[in-house]
């Protein structure tokens, strides 16, 4: 028969192997990234020391989009191929993505104050990222709104896929509209428009965030698997008690 819990065994074994590596990579990249970002890179000739906010802000913003894309992909997988781990991966990704989005918004605000003279502007990039944050919150709220976990998974997966239209809007908002936010300078045609001394810490921090995501994702997914096992055990208790009752009352058969 098809065994719904067959996959998690393999997954947990794989997670056991990957998890310490992800933790180690997170630590390694964070330390080197922070060293290069804070000490071994120059201050900007216009922005001064505040430019160093970039080493948190930009990777966090990348992760905000990356997590949503990963979440939407997991949701699509869950809806089409009904892979139980995909539901768990999407559910585990959402809070991480929401945190990265919030981090990008807050650091952006802190950076905007000295640079633009305002904490917040209603331009296309900032607004669309704020909507992304709301979409994460909506996803999590919907996911937890049902007594039947399965229904929560499916409903929120549909929402995540609908909300995916926002991702390209965020990416291209700086090109489509005139915004205060500067256009992409790393990922662009014709090579990055940023000096290597700044690119190095940026890439290191981005890797650190990716490794951190992987690490926390694995921890959260294992937590979810354990929660599912507890739920299934409870169901079984109820079922057995129910059957015992019926047998005692002579109603079975």
């Amino acid at each position, binding site marked *: 028969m098809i065994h719904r819990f067959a996959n998690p065994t393999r997954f947990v074994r794989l997670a056991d192997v990957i998890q310490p590596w992800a933790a180690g990579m997170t630590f390694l990249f964070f330390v080197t990234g922070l060293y290069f970002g804070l000490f071994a890179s120059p201050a900007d000739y216009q922005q001064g020391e505040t430019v160093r906010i970039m080493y948190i802000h930009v990777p966090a913003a990348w992760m905000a989009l990356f997590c949503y894309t990963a979440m939407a992909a997991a949701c699509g997988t869950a809806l089409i191929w009904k892979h139980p781990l995909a539901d768990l991966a999407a559910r585990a990704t959402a809070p991480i993505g929401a945190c990265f989005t919030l981090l990008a918004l807050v650091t952006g605000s802190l950076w905007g104050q000295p640079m633009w003279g305002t904490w917040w502007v209603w331009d296309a990039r900032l607004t669309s990222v704020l909507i992304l944050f*709301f979409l994460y*919150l*909506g996803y999590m709220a919907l996911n937890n*709104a*049902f007594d039947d976990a399965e229904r929560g998974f499916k*409903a929120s997966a*549909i929402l995540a896929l*609908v*909300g995916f239209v926002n991702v390209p809007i965020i990416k291209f908002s700086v090109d489509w509209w005139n915004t205060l936010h500067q256009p992409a300078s790393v990922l662009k045609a014709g090579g990055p428009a940023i000096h290597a001394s700044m690119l190095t810490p940026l890439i290191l921090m981005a890797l650190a965030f990716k490794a951190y995501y992987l690490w926390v994702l694995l921890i959260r997914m294992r937590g979810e698997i354990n929660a599912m096992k507890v739920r299934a055990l409870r169901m079984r208790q109820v079922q057995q008690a129910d059957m015992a009752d019926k047998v005692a009352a002579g109603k079975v058969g």
Partner: protein
Amino acid sequence: MSSFIAILSRDLNLAYRQGMDSVMVVMFFVIAVVLFPFGVGPEANILARIAAGVIWVAALLASMLSLERLFDADYEDGSLEILILQPITLEIAVAAKVTAHWLTTGLPLIIAAPVLAILLNLPADGFAVLISALALGTPSLSLIGAIGAALILGARRGGVLLSLLVLPLYIPVLIFGVSAVDAGLGGFPFKSHLLALGGLLLATLALCPWVSASALKQALRS
């Protein structure tokens, strides 16, 4: 097509006999707008400046308020389950229900809007743009809202949840709806904003019935 007409006429019939729904939506719309002169003060030029935005936001909230019942009544009394088990295209059934929702809530809002625009001192050049923008925008609101209404079926505290899901998705309609009126008032060409609203309507018309139908199927399968 016959199933579209059958469902549309049933829903209109239900709305007509249950009566109050449309009236309450319009009353909410009017009261919400009337609060603003008290909130920001009665100066005519300030009210005129914010009129378009206030009317759009109130319309959006009013349209959303009635969404919760769009599928919920049919879900609770078992009609939805039977509807899914009929040999009809569910997307068409959804489109019929959304059309009925728009006719009973969106259309009354458009009719009430000019009166409110007068109360808020919206300059005369803005009226035609406001009405056309609402006519193009409110069907999109009903269509997008249908997705949310289908997703929350069976959820705890569905109404609050619905606003959390639907309002972020309403923002594009709001942006183009208000900027069309602002452009009209400033004497700029507003056609491109109306075209954007029309584009949104076409996109939601193509996508939303399909997504809502699959959300409804998910809701009934658990």
